[in-house]
C-alpha cells in the first residue's frame, strides 16, 4: 500500500502543490518568527552579558512601581558611593545615571523614535574602565559641562564629527553640546541600535535625573573576591552605616534580570506575530482539507478498485494519510528553510548585530511538528472518507457530487448561530468583551457548519447578476459555484477567516477614530495641542507651557504631566494639571470643585464608584522618589468629574501642578493644551506657538484637526501592520480558491469538452471558470464581512465606556474589501481558466 500511496502522490503531485504551499507558507511564517525571536534573545543575552561583564555588584533603590512600560525604580543618593567604595573587596565603584536623551540631527529632526524603535538613552560617562562597556574610537571622554560623547551609529547616521556642536533634547531642555568623543560598544557601533549621549556625571545628573542622585552604583571586586562575597560585604557596610532603601545584587543577578526583562518584552512581540502565523496555518487547514477531499473524490474509482481487489479500509486510509504526511513533511521542511530567509531579512531590517541566526532545536521541532500536524489533521477526514468508498463504486459511474444539503446540519448550525449571536449581543450590552469573543467564536463555528447549506442560495444570489451580464457563461459559473456546496463553502471559509479578521480590525479602527473625533468635537474647546511625540519618554520641558502662556494671543494653557505613583497602596499613574484642563476638555464636575488647590485631588466618577470615595475623603498619594516629607503625602478628594462621555477623561487621579512638581523629581509634560484669546485665529497664532516649540525636535504643534489626524495616523500604523500580517492568510486562501477551481475544472473535463464541441468559445470557457471563482471568493468575502461586522460591533459596544462611544461601519474599506475579494477570485482563476480553455475537445470528451 505504501507503494500505491507513493505512486498516487507522484501521479497527482500537481494537485498537491497548493497543499504543499499552504503548509510551507504557514510554517515559514512560524519558523521565521521563532528563529528571529531566538536570535534576538541571543543577541540581547550577549549584549547584557557584555554590558555587565566586569560588574560584580550593583546597589540600587529597593523602591519599585509598576508602570505602563514595565517596572520603574527609584534613585539612590550619591552620598553612599564612598561607603560602597570603602567596603571590603571593592576594587572600584561608580555611580550611573540613566535617562532619555534625543540627539537632534543637522536638519533639526530627532534621531530615532523611542516610541517605535530602539531606545534613545542618555547616561553619564563612567571613568572606571571595568564598568564602562564603551570604548572611544575618536576623541576623548567628556571632562566638563557642555561636552558629550555619542555612539558611533548615531555619529554615522547624522554625520556629526568630533568638534561639532550637537543639539540634544532632554527632559529639561534642548541645549547644544560640544561633541568631544565617539564611542563604540565592543565591536558594534551601538548596543542593539540604541542611541547614546554621555555627559559628565554632574551634568548627567542635572539633565537626566536629580543632582546628587544616581540610578544605581556598580562595583568591581578585587581579584580573587567572588561576586557573592563583594555583594555581601557592600550590604554589610551599608547596613552598618545606616543606609536604608537600597538593595545590593550581584553582577550575575543584574545580568539575568535584565536579560529576562528584555525576553518578556520580546515574548509579547513573539506572541503577537505567532498569532498571525497560527491564523495562516488555520486557514491552511481549510485549504489542505479541501484539496484532499477533492482528490479523494476524484480518485473514488481508484480507491474502489483497490478495495475490490482486496485492500482493507485501513489500508486505503493509510495510503491517504501517508500521502498527507509526505506532503506535510516536505512543506514543513521547505517552509522552515524559507522561514530562515524571512528571519534573516527581518533581522537585517531590525538591525540586529550580525552573528548569524540562532537556530535552536526547539524552533525547528515546533515548526515542523506543527506543519506536519496541521496537514495530518486536515487530511484525516478525507482519508476516512476514502476508506468508506464501497468496492462497488469501481463499477459505477463516478458520482462526485456530495450535496451537503443535510437539513439536520443546517438546523444545528442555525441554532449555534442564534446562540452565538445571542452571546455576542449579551456580551456587548453587558460590556464584557470576553463574552463577545466567545460568542464570535460560536458564530464562526456556526458559519462553518451552515455555509455548505448557504453555498447554493448565496452563489445563486451572487451569481444572478453575473448570469444576466455574462449570459450562458455566467449562468454556468453560477451553477458550478453552487454545485458542490461543501467544496465551495470550505474554499470560501478559508477566505472568510482572513477577510473576517481584516474587516473586524477595520470596524474597530473606524469606530475608535469616530469615537475620538466625536469626543474631541464635543469636548475639546481648545485650539491647539502640543504633543511631546515620544509617548512622554523624553517629554517636554515645563518651560514650553510657560512660554506659550506668555504669548499675547494665548488665553489658557493646560499641561498634562504623568508620573507613576502609589495611591492608597496601589501602583498607578497620577496626572498633574491645572483647573484649565477641565475647561478645555469640557469635563463636567459631578461633585466638589476642580480648583486643584494644594493637597487637593480630583477623581473620576468611575473611580469614586469603584474605590468607594466621596468628597472630603483622605487618600495617601506618593510618587517615586517623592521629595515631600511623608506627612504631606496625603491628598483630599476635592472634586469628582464625569468621565463617561470623554473616554476616561484625563486620568483617574488628578492633582494640581504645584503638588505634582513638589513631589516628582523630574517633571516633563506629555501634552500641553492651548486655548487662544477670543478673536485670534488659529492660523494667526500657529507661527508664534511653533516658534516656542521649534527647538524640541520631537514635539508637534497640532490644531484640533491635526491632532485627530495624528491619532488616526498612529492607529493606521497598527491597522496596516495587522492587515499586512493577515495578508498571508488571505493569500493562502486565494491559493485554495485557485486549487479548488483547478481541480473542479479537471473533474469537469468532459463537460467542458462537450461545451466546446457544441460551440462554446474559449473566451466563454475562461469566463465561466473566472466567474465561478469570483462567486466563490465573493461568498467568502461576504461571510467574512458579516463576521467582521458582528464581532466588531460586539467588541465596540462592549467597550462603550472605555472610549468606544461610537460604532461606525467602515463603508469605504468594506467596499474595497468586496472589490478585492472579487479581484482575488479573478486572480485565482487565471491559470485554471487558461488551462480549461486550452484543452483538446476530443480528448476532453473521451476523458474519464
Amino acid at each position, binding site marked *: 500500500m505504501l507503494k500505491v500511496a507513493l505512486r498516487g502522490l507522484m501521479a497527482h503531485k500537481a494537485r498537491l502543490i497548493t497543499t504543499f504551499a499552504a503548509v510551507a507558507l504557514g510554517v515559514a511564517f512560524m519558523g521565521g518568527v521563532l528563529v528571529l525571536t531566538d536570535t534576538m534573545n541571543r543577541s540581547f543575552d550577549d549584549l547584557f552579558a557584555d554590558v555587565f561583564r566586569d560588574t560584580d555588584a550593583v546597589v540600587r533603590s529597593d523602591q519599585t512601581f509598576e508602570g505602563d512600560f514595565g517596572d520603574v525604580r527609584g534613585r539612590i543618593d550619591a552620598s553612599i558611593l564612598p561607603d560602597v567604595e570603602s567596603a571590603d573587596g571593592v576594587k572600584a565603584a561608580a555611580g550611573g545615571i540613566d535617562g532619555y536623551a534625543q540627539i537632534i540631527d543637522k536638519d533639526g529632526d530627532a534621531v530615532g523614535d523611542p516610541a517605535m524603535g530602539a531606545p534613545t538613552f542618555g547616561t553619564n560617562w563612567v571613568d572606571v574602565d571595568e564598568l564602562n562597556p564603551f570604548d572611544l574610537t575618536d576623541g576623548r571622554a567628556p571632562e566638563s559641562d557642555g561636552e558629550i560623547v555619542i555612539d558611533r551609529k548615531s555619529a554615522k547616521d547624522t554625520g556629526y564629527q568630533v568638534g561639532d556642536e550637537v543639539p540634544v533634547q532632554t527632559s529639561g531642555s534642548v541645549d547644544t553640546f560640544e561633541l568631544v568623543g565617539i564611542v563604540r560598544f565592543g565591536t558594534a557601533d551601538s548596543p542593539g541600535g540604541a542611541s547614546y549621549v554621555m555627559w559628565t556625571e554632574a551634568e548627567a545628573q542635572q539633565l537626566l535625573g536629580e543632582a546628587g542622585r544616581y540610578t544605581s552604583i556598580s562595583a568591581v571586586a578585587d581579584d580573587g573576591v567572588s561576586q557573592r562575597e563583594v555583594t555581601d560585604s557592600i550590604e554589610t557596610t551599608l547596613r552598618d552605616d545606616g543606609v536604608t532603601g537600597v538593595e545590593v545584587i550581584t553582577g550575575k543577578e543584574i545580568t539575568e534580570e535584565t536579560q529576562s526583562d528584555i525576553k518578556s518584552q520580546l515574548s509579547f512581540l513573539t506572541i503577537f506575530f505567532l498569532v498571525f502565523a497560527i491564523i495562516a496555518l488555520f486557514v491552511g487547514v481549510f485549504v489542505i482539507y479541501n484539496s484532499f477531499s477533492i482528490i479523494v473524490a476524484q480518485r473514488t474509482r481508484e480507491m474502489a478498485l483497490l478495495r475490490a481487489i482486496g485492500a482493507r479500509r485501513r489500508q486505503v486510509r493509510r495510503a491517504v494519510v501517508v500521502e498527507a504526511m509526505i506532503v506535510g513533511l516536505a512543506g514543513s521542511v521547505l517552509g522552515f528553510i524559507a522561514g530562515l530567509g524571512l528571519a534573516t531579512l527581518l533581522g537585517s531590517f531590525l538591525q540586529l548585530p550580525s552573528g548569524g541566526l540562532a537556530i535552536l532545536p526547539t524552533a525547528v521541532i515546533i515548526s515542523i511538528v506543527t506543519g506536519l500536524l496541521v496537514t495530518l489533521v486536515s487530511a484525516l477526514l478525507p482519508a476516512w472518507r476514502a476508506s468508506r468508498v464501497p468496492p462497488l463504486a469501481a463499477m459505477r459511474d463516478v458520482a462526485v457530487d456530495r450535496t451537503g444539503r443535510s437539513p439536520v446540519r443546517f438546523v444545528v448550525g442555525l441554532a449555534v448561530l442564534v446562540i452565538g449571536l445571542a452571546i455576542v449581543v449579551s456580551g456587548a450590552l453587558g460590556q464584557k468583551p470576553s463574552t463577545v469573543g466567545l460568542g464570535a467564536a460560536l458564530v464562526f463555528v456556526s458559519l462553518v457548519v451552515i455555509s455548505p447549506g448557504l453555498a447554493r442560495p448565496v452563489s445563486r444570489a451572487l451569481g444572478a447578476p453575473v448570469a444576466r451580464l455574462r*449570459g*450562458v457563461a455566467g*449562468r*454556468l459559473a453560477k*451553477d*458550478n459555484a453552487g*454545485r458542490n456546496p461543501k467544496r465551495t463553502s470550505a474554499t470560501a471559509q478559508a477566505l472568510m477567516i482572513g477577510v473576517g479578521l481584516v474587516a473586524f480590525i477595520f470596524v474597530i479602527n473606524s469606530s475608535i477614530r469616530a469615537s475620538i473625533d466625536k469626543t474631541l468635537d464635543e469636548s475639546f474647546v481648545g485650539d491647539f495641542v502640543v504633543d511631546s511625540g515620544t509617548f512622554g519618554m523624553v517629554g517636554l520641558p515645563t518651560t514650553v507651557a510657560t512660554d506659550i502662556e506668555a504669548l499675547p494671543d494665548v488665553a489658557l494653557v493646560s499641561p498634562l504631566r504623568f508620573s507613576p505613583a502609589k495611591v492608597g497602596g496601589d501602583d498607578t499613574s497620577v496626572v498633574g494639571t491645572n483647573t484649565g484642563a477641565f475647561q478645555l476638555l469640557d469635563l463636567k464636575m459631578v461633585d466638589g470643585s476642580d480648583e486643584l488647590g494644594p493637597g487637593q485631588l480630583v477623581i473620576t466618577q468611575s473611580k469614586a464608584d469603584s474605590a468607594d470615595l466621596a468628597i472630603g475623603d483622605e487618600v495617601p498619594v506618593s510618587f517615586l522618589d517623592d521629595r515631600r516629607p511623608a506627612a504631606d503625602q496625603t491628598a483630599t478628594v476635592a472634586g469628582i468629574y464625569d468621565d463617561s462621555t470623554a473616554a476616561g477623561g484625563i486620568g483617574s487621579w488628578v492633582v494640581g501642578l504645584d503638588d505634582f512638581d513638589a513631589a516628582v523629581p523630574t517633571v516633563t509634560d506629555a501634552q500641553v493644551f492651548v486655548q487662544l484669546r477670543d478673536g485670534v485665529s488659529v492660523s494667526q497664532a500657529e507661527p508664534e506657538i511653533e516658534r516656542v516649540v521649534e527647538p524640541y525636535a520631537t514635539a508637534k504643534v497640532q490644531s484640533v484637526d491635526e491632532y485627530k489626524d495624528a491619532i488616526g495616523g498612529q492607529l493606521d500604523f497598527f491597522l496596516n501592520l495587522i492587515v499586512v500580517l493577515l495578508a498571508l492568510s488571505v493569500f493562502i486562501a486565494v491559493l485554495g480558491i485557485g486549487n479548488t477551481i483547478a481541480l473542479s475544472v479537471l473533474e469537469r473535463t*468532459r*463537460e467542458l469538452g*462537450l*461545451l*466546446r*464541441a*457544441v*460551440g*462554446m*468559445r*474559449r473566451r*466563454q470557457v475562461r469566463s465561466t471558470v473566472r466567474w465561478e471563482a469570483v462567486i466563490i471568493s465573493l461568498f467568502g468575502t461576504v461571510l467574512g464581512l458579516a463576521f467582521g461586522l458582528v464581532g466588531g460591533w460586539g467588541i465596540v459596544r462592549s467597550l462603550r465606556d472605555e472610549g468606544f462611544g461610537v460604532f461606525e461601519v467602515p463603508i469605504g474599506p468594506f467596499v474595497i474589501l468586496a472589490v478585492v475579494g472579487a479581484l482575488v477570485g479573478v486572480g485565482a482563476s487565471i491559470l485554471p481558466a487558461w488551462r480549461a480553455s486550452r484543452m483538446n*475537445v*476530443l480528448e476532453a*470528451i473521451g476523458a474519464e
Partner: protein
Amino acid sequence: MENPADSPPPFAASAADATPGAVGTAPTPAARAVGATKVYGSGDTAVVALDDVSVDMPSGHFTAVMGPSGSGKSTLMHCMAGLDSLTGGQVFIGDQDLGDLSEDELTLLRRDKVGFVFQAFNLVPTLTAAENIRLPLTLAGRSADEEWLATVVKTTGLADRLGHRPSELSGGQQQRVAVARALASRPQIIFADEPTGNLDSRSGTEILDFMRRAVREMGQTIVMVTHDPGAASYADTALFLNDGRIVDRMEQPTAERVLDLLKSFGE
C-alpha cells in the same frame, strides 16, 4: 466478430462514384471530404486512420457510417465536424473549407452549423433539459426560432420533462434531449457518434426513430457513426469503412444486408 487484420477486398469505385451527389436531391452536399488523410504518430509507429477518403454527405439525408473498430469511422466524423484536423486533404461544411479556419472560427462553425450527439455524457448536468436544448443558441447569443423549437420539443415527446435536470431523466430521454439540442439551431448537419451505444434496445429504437423523423419530416441532415446493423437500417445510406478507406456503400440498408456485408469483411 470481424478481423480487421485481414485485408478487405478493394472497392476502388466507391470514392469516385460518390462525389457528385450520387443519391441526394440537393445540389450542394451538407458536408464533403476530399482526399481526407489522417495519420497518427510518425515513422515506424505511424497509424493511418484515414487513407485518402473522398465522400459527400448529401443534404436532407440520413447517412450511417459503419465499420469495425479501428476502421477510421470516428476519425472521419471528428474531422468532418471540425473537432479534429486532417494530415492531408480537405473537408468542407457546405462551401467552407475547414482547413482555412482558425480555432475560434471552427468553434463558431460548430456552434452555428453543426450539431452533435455523443454516445454518452451528452448534456451539461447543471442545466435543465430545456436549457440544454437551447444551449447552442444561448452560447451564440441568438434568439431561438420558437416555432421550430416547439416542433422539435414536440417530436421528442419530452414536453413535460423540460424542467428536469439530466440526472432526473432516463438514458433514452437524455439522448432525445441531446438530439433535440442538436436540432435546435437548425444546423446544416448533425453528427451522431454511436448515439445508441449506451442505451437499451427500446430506448435506442426511440432515438433512431426520432432521428429518422428529423430527416424525413424536418429536412435535417444527419451523419451517424455506428457499428450496430440495426441502427444502420434506419439510415438512407450506409457507408462502410475499413482500414481508413471507404470500402462499400449501401442504399436503403436493412439490418440483414448490413450484417451480411460486415461478415464479408471478416472472411
